[in-house]
């Protein structure tokens, strides 16, 4: 019998406090976002697929010298880098840079080993498609489109 009434008192009090908490939550603004219509900014550290960094603001130019370190280091073998010698240009010129995002594990070794710092993670997160081929990204084309 001891504590019977004090239990009712403390219990009732805590129940009322609980009601107060939910009432305050009820009148506070909503925190969720109606996604397809409203979007919130993604974190800059998000790891999307890799992309070439634009080194020149005017034209779509990148800094890749076709050393192939990214393709060699890739544990998933999902990067293809090809280049060719061109007249009057020092070193090789990049002709093909594709990444098969269906295989990519986003480990980031390509970004880390790039000696020219020409690669980075994009912050592309709305990726959905009907075929695998839609995820074979051509990064040079992508850079030009940007």
């Amino acid at each position, binding site marked *: 019998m001891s504590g019977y009434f004090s239990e*009712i008192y403390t219990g009732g009090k805590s*129940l009322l406090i*609980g*009601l107060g*908490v*939910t*009432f305050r*939550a*009820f009148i*506070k*603004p*909503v*925190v*969720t976002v*109606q996604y397809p219509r409203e979007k919130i900014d993604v974190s800059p550290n998000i790891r999307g697929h890799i992309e070439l960094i634009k080194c020149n603001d005017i034209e779509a130019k990148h800094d890749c010298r076709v050393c192939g370190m990214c393709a060699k280091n890739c544990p998933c073998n999902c990067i293809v880098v090809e280049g060719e010698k061109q007249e009057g240009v020092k070193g090789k010129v990049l002709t093909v840079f594709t990444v098969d995002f269906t295989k990519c594990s986003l480990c980031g070794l390509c970004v880390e080993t790039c000696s020219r710092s020409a690669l980075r993670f994009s912050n592309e997160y709305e990726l959905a498609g009907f075929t695998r081929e839609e995820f074979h990204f051509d990064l040079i084309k992508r850079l030009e489109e940007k």
Partner: protein
Amino acid sequence: MEQIIKFIQTYSLLRMLLAFCCLIGIIFANAIVMGYLERKIAARIQRRWGPMEVGLQGWLQMILDGVKILSKQLIVPKDANRFLFRLAPLLCFTPVAMVFVALPISRSLYGINLNIGLIYIIAMGSINVFSILIAGWSSNNKYSLFGAMRSVAQNIAYEVPILLSLLAVVLTTSTFDLQEIVKAQSGPIWFVLYPNLFVAFVIYLIAGCAETNRAPFDLPEAESELTAGYHTEYSGFAFGLFAIAEYGNLFIMASIATIMFLGGWNGPFGFLSGPVMGAIWFLSKVFILMLTMMWVRWTYPRVRFDQLMNLAWKYLIPFSLVNLLITALVVKII
């Protein structure tokens, strides 16, 4: 003369039919409105938006859900008792409709005025337990059966404090007639303002919450433990009837609280208690009570079974008994 009597008879039959259609309409509309409000309030308490897609603020959502439920197949499990399985949702819904007949919504808006209205409503309300038991047992599913068993234990335990707390009001007014009970509160003081009847009101609200199987006392459904409890196996409109009956029961619970404690169709200080304004007062009181129930539902976690039983037998029943004794003494002395 015969013709006139015949006309009145046909007229009254028509009137009954019309009233019945209105009644079913009210029950369905109540379920739709309350379902929508429930989802919106739950969402706002959890700081979400709730239904937003169809119609302004998603107000069409419940109607679309109703249409979806109507278009679904009624699946009867292979080893279920077919007859009882089909019977249970009807048995759940019919008493709700029958209770609505006896509710005095305003001075002149009611189905029937029974002089034992309160007893009738409580008797009809307890059929609900029966339907849940039948639904759970006939599904031939262990979760449904668990839900049904819990429900029976719960409703039997909580019917006692409900009856005792309502009896306190009956002692004060010495009538079971709901219209008379409302008229007894036509002065400035509603019954909830009497200290002893205020205790009865609180006990009634807690026990009523348990009686309508709503959270925090929703053990018969307990989706985290029993999938959906007694209506696990129900699909299509059979499930819809259970949901509609749940909101109907909530309405009944709130309207009995309004009639017995909050002055029914009386306005505050007897202000504007005519037939039309009375109905508005009544419905607004009922809706405020129902919204409070929702607020409670989305605040508290579900109680454990032993806590549920302790609350009924150790707290509510002793308190309502003592309260009844005090009320009897007060009535005897005054």
